[in-house]
Each structure stands twice: as C-alpha cells, then as structure tokens.
C-alpha cells in the first residue's frame, strides 16, 4: 500500500495522514514510556500491600502530575477515564445529578461533539431543560446569547474549547467568568485544545475539563477529567460504581499503561507545544495559500482568527466531498459530506454555521500533525487542486454557474425531505 514519491522539497511516503482531529499516531516516546507497564511493572495501582501495586501507583501519580501541569491544575484534581466520551458523560451527568436540587437548566451550544449533545439529550428525557445556543457565521457563540440564556435554575454550562471539525476556538475565558459571577459551573470539552494551544483552568475560569489521550499523540482508550477542588469545590455523582476508585468519582481498575502514555503525551506537549504550534500554523497557512491561490470559489468554514493552528476546513463549490476524497485516496482527510457519514446526514457543525447543505457536502477537513512535513503539504495541495479541477469539469453545477445561472433560484427536482 505504501509508496515513495518525489514532491517539491523532498520525498513523501504514501499514504499521507492528515486527519489528526480524528486521531493521532502515538509518539514513539509515549509508546516507550508505556511498555514496562505491559511487562514487568504490571501491578494494579490499587494494590496497597505490595511493591507491584506501589510501583503502579507511583506511575499513576506521575501521570496525574504531568497532566495537571499542562493545564494549570492540582494533581488531586485529575481523574482517569476510558476517554473523552466518558469524561464528557461523567462531567455533565455527574454535575446534573449532584446539583439537581439547585436547578435543572443546562446550557450548551450547537456545534458540540456528540458526546456532549447526546448526553444533554438524555438528560432532557430525565426532566432537565437544555438550551442549545446557536453559533455565528464564524462558529463562535455570542456571549450576549449566553448571558440572556442563564437563569436562576441554571446549574451548568458546557461549551467546548476547540471544535473538532472546524477548529474554531470559543471564548472560554469570558464564558467561565460569566459562569463564576453567577455561581454556575463551567465544563469544557478541551479535547482538541489541550496540548495544542495554551489552556489553563485557573486563568480560563474552568471548573471541569475533558481530555483525550489519542488526540495528543497518546494511546486510545484513555482520557482524563479535571474536577476543580477550590473556588468552587466541584462534586460529581459517579456514573460507574464498584470500588470507589478516583475519589469515588470513577470506579474501575486503572489502565496503567495507557494513563502512563497519556501522562507522557502531556509532558511532551508541555515542552513542545509552542514550537510545534508555530510550525503547524506555518504548514497550515502554506496549504491554505497554495489551494486558495490556484482555485476560485473556495471557502474556509469558521473563523481563521480564532482557530487551532493545525486545522483547515474548506468547501470547494460545485464539487462533492466524497468524490474529492476518492480522487485523493492516497491522502487521509475527512469530509462534512453526507455521503461520507454512516447516517447520510451532512455535517451538523457546518449546518450550524449557516453555510447551506451544498457547501457542507463540498467540505474537506485537514488536520495537520506532528509528523506532517512541508513536502507532504505541497503534495496534498497539488493533488487537491488537480482533483477539484477535474471534478469541476464533471460537474453540472459548475457548468450552470459558468453560464451565469443563479443556482439558488433553480427549482430542483428532488427537494430534500429531511
């Protein structure tokens, strides 16, 4: 399957992976750090009475410290989970159940990850009231909308730091400040932001934060949840019972090798984030300039100013996303097109931007990462431009647009039924 090709400044090895918002390749240093815990250091971190347990426990504490350091928290405020989906569930359901006497209103927003949205939907079935704030064209919420939505029954606001599809950053510092003024808890799904952009739970006024291992060059199947202990002290009702691990908040034997991996990934991020952010921003901007410089009618989805340095999400008018992916099938990226989703629904995130389904169907998400090179960026840019050009020749919409027909005025035969 793999091949070496010449591109611009050097060789690229195919296939190229440029889908780092979906997952990241574990850093070799992370894998190395994990290995002993699969071998001679295999003890259960909860075994209090022998060295096997003590060694595992020590490794766990070190991992906690490394995660805490990256986000400006205290070691005691980090609990381990099976991943960010579980962290989101624990944060939202755990807070809702704990503070139910105080109120039953939760506020979130339209472009959250399904782990947050589906959890909120379930809470609605249990009698909670949830407000889903809209986003503006740039993908950010309007702080005035949030202010207006809060009432005396609001107990929790959950808004992500960075979006996984469009990379847009929400104004979490201001959101957190607003919440603290009103005694409302603020949870943020920080999965795509941690280790990529500066994130500090004190400065950003965050009370609860979800973290994922496999998004920051760590292993899959492990995540963490930051749970504030001071100003305010946050308590969560456990969603998994049995043994009382993690201060009673999350029972279950700890996945020591994986959490060691997560800790190491965070330590690396702490050291290298600034440099890496700069490098990836440069690569991302290069990709954008090369594509936009050679094609017309190409649109960036979401704010470029408030965005992860490694994300690019572009719609190519008159070309459908899956056919574009097919044409660049030696490059791993993803699309907001309905044809690429299991449910045949176009991306709800792009819909929330007000782009229109046709641009959602034409979108490609590029997620640059630690292992991408300039040569790869040049190769990808060329292949994308070449494929879009070819597909536009095949496109009846491009033909009609060139004839001067206003596509918004056409009465299409198959109006969507959904």
């Amino acid at each position, binding site marked *: 399957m793999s091949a070496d090709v010449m591109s611009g400044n050097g060789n690229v090895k195919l296939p190229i992976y440029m889908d780092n918002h979906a997952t990241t390749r574990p850093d070799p240093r992370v894998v190395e750090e994990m290995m002993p815990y699969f071998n001679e250091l295999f003890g259960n971190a909860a075994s209090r009475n022998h060295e096997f347990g003590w060694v595992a426990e020590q490794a766990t504490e070190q991992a906690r410290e490394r995660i805490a350091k990256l986000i400006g928290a205290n070691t005691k405020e980090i609990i381990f989970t099976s991943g960010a989906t579980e962290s989101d569930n624990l944060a939202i359901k755990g807070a809702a159940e704990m503070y139910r006497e105080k109120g039953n209103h939760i506020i979130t927003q339209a472009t959250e990850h399904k782990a947050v949205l589906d959890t909120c939907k379930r809470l609605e079935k249990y009698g909670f009231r949830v407000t889903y704030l809209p986003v503006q064209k740039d993908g950010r919420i309007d702080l005035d909308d949030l202010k207006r939505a809060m009432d005396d029954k609001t107990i929790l606001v959950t808004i992500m730091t960075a979006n996984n599809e469009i990379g847009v950053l929400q104004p979490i510092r201001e959101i957190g400040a607003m919440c603290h003024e009103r005694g409302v808890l603020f949870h943020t799904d920080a999965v795509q932001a941690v280790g990529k952009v500066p994130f500090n739970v004190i400065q950003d006024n965050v009370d609860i934060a979800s973290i994922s291992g496999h998004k920051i060059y760590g292993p899959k199947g492990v995540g963490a949840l930051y749970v504030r202990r001071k100003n305010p002290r946050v308590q969560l009702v456990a969603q998994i019972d049995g043994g009382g691990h993690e201060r009673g908040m999350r029972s279950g034997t700890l996945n020591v090798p994986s959490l060691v991996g997560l800790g190491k990934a965070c330590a690396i991020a702490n050291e290298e984030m600034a440099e890496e952010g700069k490098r990836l921003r440069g690569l991302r901007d290069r990709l954008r300039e090369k594509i936009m410089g050679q094609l017309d009618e190409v649109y960036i989805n979401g704010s470029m100013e408030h965005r992860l340095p490694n994300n690019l999400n572009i719609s190519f008018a008159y070309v459908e996303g899956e056919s574009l992916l097919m044409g660049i099938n030696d490059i791993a990226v993803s699309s907001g097109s*309905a*044809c690429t989703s299991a449910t045949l629904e176009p991306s709800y995130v792009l819909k929330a931007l007000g782009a229109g*389904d046709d641009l959602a169907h034409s979108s490609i998400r590029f997620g640059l990462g630690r292992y991408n090179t300039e040569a790869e960026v040049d190769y990808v840019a060329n292949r994308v431009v070449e494929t879009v050009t070819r597909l536009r020749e095949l496109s009846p919409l491009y033909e009609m647009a060139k004839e001067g027909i206003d596509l918004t005025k056409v009465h*299409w*035969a198959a109006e969507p039924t959904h």
Partner: protein
Amino acid sequence: MAYSNKVLDHYTNPRNVGSLDKNSPEVGTGLVGAPECGDVMKLQIKVNPETNIIEDAKFKTFGCGSAIASSSLATEWVKGKTVDEALEIKNTEIVKELSLPPVKIHCSVLAEDAIRAAIGDWKQKQGQEKSAPVVQHANVVQPA
C-alpha cells in the same frame, strides 16, 4: 468501505462526460437531484428522429464516486438503444453491475431517474407528451 473496481474505473475514466446542445430538437436533457442532497445528475441523449435510437449520450454529475459511476454507466447503456428500450433500464441492474453497497443504492435510482427525465424531455419536444414528462426535472431560469 472500499470502492468496487468498476466504480473506481468509471470514476477515474468516466465515459461520455460533457454536454449536448440542449436547444436541439434531437436532444433530451434530464436534470435530477438537488445540491442540498449532495447529488445532482445531468444526463443528455441525442436521438435519431427516424429510428428513435439514442445515438449519443453525455453526462455531468455532482455527487460521490458511486453517483458519478452510476451516471457514467447509464450513458454507456443508453447508447445504441431505442428510447423505449432505454426506459427498461432498471436501477437494480446498475447496482449489480457496479456492486453498489446498500448505502449507495439511491445513486443508482437517481441515474435511472436521469435517464427517464432525459427521455421525457425529448418526448415533450417531439410533442409526444402534452402533459408533464415521465420524471419531474429541474426548472432552470436562464440568465437574461
């Protein structure tokens, strides 16, 4: 989800891409689907007025690889057939030929609709159908 070889072939080497003169009395144009759905197919046929045989067919498609392949295959199949024979083409035959998975069956349905829409348009031009064509197709406002 891997693509079938036939789909990849039609995608990489599509047959009969292009346009015929939609104002010609011998040409029928079918435009089906909607950008909002992610699938739009334009299929055109040129029919010999004496024999009713489809002498040429062209397509353009906005849609996924399976949609492009389905419409490319449709143009291959209608060429050389009479208009009535072309109306017999079923989407299930397209599914079989391209090994389309269940989630892509609708692409073949749209291709069948495109054939019918093109034939319907041609028939209307011949005055053979006073009423609406076989399949409703898009109403395009030409620029002034």
